[in-house]
């Protein structure tokens, strides 16, 4: 690619984000200065734009939490639902209208705590929904309580002496439950994030992209980790980017954040496809 | 207001209340559905079927009620039975008190031995099913055939149509024989109990 073409492409990418913001919404956005949610939002826009999806057919479904406010700003079809239930609503949207591209924006508390049941069942069904799980290790909107991903010993307003609990690994959970595309990235790794989101959206089946993000306002402050930039540097240091497009080796034993495609299964059948086969066979007069 | 006491009011007699009872698994809810469909095929009759539902359906005394009327049926359940079929001792003990004076009692004498009255029709539905038809599952259908013969609540043809409409493929013949066997046995028993008086 020539330098000129590369530059033209780059300019388009930074401009493109503005074209996908809602005209009726007030900016600046409601997130804290430096919050990773905005980084994820821009990455998602670039991925959708690069894939050339018709924005009228893209449905963003979210639950409750800081990350779940994202569909307010992004000009697609949007369903900002109840706490933890985004995947249930998304299942209704996708199953009734398989022609739509359904993307769920959720947080660690929303999808792994109150919504844990819906997450594992959406994985199990392998319904063609892309879930962007923004994991910042804490409840931000309610003011810094522990979440199911808070590391042991970490401080939160409900664990003032350090957490005695063990956390969930969202990607392992999704893999065990049957999701067929699972990837992890961080808000520092924006180029990788763009690519993983594109792959996840293109994947036929249930896809999960866990984005490790920063809540410096609560998680950073209560655990003395510094401001947004410090957390981003931490992600840079700890991430082991080993994605070569294959299922990767887990090296969390070294206190690292493995990033890249963690699991991919293109063999498993997708729910809406299977049900359509049933509809077709019944229409021909013979049950499957 | 007039001083007629409503407590003296007679519930109209154009209701015929049937209860099929036994233990869970004897197919009595299905039998009641077949009976209701057979009776309801006559457009001049209203019919409602209700069932006891829940743990009883999986063992213990089970029942299903059919209420028949030439007019509209309001209260949907059976209160004063005109006909009680008891396929087990337990169900007889439990539901006999609901049979009204002069009501018809039909029992399976394979499984019922202690009777509170001498006025009953006893046939060995389960034994006939097992020994003659080699299929214990059709005891309920045999009992329907007998009910058609003993009472006038349903005709043999309507019953056959209803049973065969719901019979799983391959079981039409055994079900047809079951209805007819029950009908013949019922007819014979009725003649024995009420010999022609001319």
């Amino acid at each position, binding site marked *: 690619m020539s330098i000129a073409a590369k530059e033209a492409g780059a300019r388009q990418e*930074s401009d493109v984000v503005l074209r996908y913001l809602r005209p009726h919404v007030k900016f600046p956005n409601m997130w804290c200065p430096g919050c990773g949610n905005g980084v994820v939002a821009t990455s998602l826009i670039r991925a959708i734009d690069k894939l050339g999806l018709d924005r009228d057919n893209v449905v963003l479904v979210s639950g409750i939490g800081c990350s779940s406010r994202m569909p307010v700003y992004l000009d697609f079809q949007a369903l900002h639902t109840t706490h933890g239930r985004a995947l249930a609503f998304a299942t209704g949207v996708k199953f009734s209208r398989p022609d739509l591209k359904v993307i769920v924006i959720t947080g660690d508390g929303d999808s792994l705590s109150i919504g844990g049941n819906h997450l594992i069942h959406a994985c199990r069904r392998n319904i063609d929904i892309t879930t962007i799980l923004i994991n910042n290790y804490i409840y931000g909107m309610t003011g810094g309580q522990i979440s199911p991903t808070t590391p042991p010993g970490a401080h939160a307003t409900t664990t003032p002496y350090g957490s005695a609990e063990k956390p969930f690994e969202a990607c392992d959970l999704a893999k065990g439950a049957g999701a067929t595309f699972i990837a992890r990235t961080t808000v*520092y790794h924006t180029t990788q994030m763009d690519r993983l989101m594109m792959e996840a959206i293109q994947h036929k089946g249930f896809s999960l992209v866990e984005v490790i993000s920063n809540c410096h306002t609560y998680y950073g402050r209560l655990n003395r980790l510094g401001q947004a930039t410090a957390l981003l540097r931490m992600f840079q240091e*700890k991430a082991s980017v080993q994605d070569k497009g294959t299922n990767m080796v887990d090296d969390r034993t070294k206190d690292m954040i493995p990033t890249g495609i963690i699991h991919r299964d293109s063999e498993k059948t997708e729910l809406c496809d299977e049900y359509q086969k049933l509809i077709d066979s019944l229409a021909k007069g013979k049950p499957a | 207001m007039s001083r007629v006491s409503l407590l003296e009011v007679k519930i109209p007699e154009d209701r015929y209340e049937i209860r099929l009872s036994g233990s869970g698994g004897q197919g009595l809810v299905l039998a009641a559905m077949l009976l209701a469909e057979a009776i309801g095929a006559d457009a001049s009759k209203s019919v409602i079927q209700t069932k006891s539902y829940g743990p009883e359906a999986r063992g213990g005394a089970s029942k299903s009620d059919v209420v028949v009327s030439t007019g509209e049926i309001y209260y949907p359940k059976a209160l004063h039975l005109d006909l009680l079929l008891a396929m087990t001792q337990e169900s007889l003990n439990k539901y006999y008190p609901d049979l009204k004076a002069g009501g018809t009692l039909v029992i399976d004498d394979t499984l019922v031995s202690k009777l509170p009255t001498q006025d009953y029709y006893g046939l060995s539905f389960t034994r006939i099913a097992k020994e003659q038809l080699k299929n214990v599952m059709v005891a309920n259908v045999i009992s329907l055939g007998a009910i058609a013969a003993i009472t006038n609540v349903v005709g043999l043809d309507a019953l056959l149509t209803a049973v065969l409409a719901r019979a799983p493929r391959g079981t039409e013949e055994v079900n047809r024989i079951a209805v007819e066997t029950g009908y013949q046995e019922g007819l014979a028993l009725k003649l024995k109990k009420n010999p022609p008086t001319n």
Partner: protein
Amino acid sequence: MNKPSAVETKTRVIKKSKIDYSQGPPPVSINAAWCKACNICISLCPQNVLAADIEGKPVVAQEENCIQCGACWTHCPDFAIKSNYK
């Protein structure tokens, strides 16, 4: 998670940009109305192109250093940086 190291001072060799910005707009424009002065762009820029103004919001200080890596605008959480690559 352990404590992170302090933000490191960048030690990369500053490469001169091949592009001449003297005729047109600066390499990036900043929408100060949407910016919340989080400092990410200034901190992540490997070339020290951006500097903080009195409010802590970025201004283009050394435009000739920009190598168009995109670190500033891909990491801006507030949709506030636009690249002006030509």
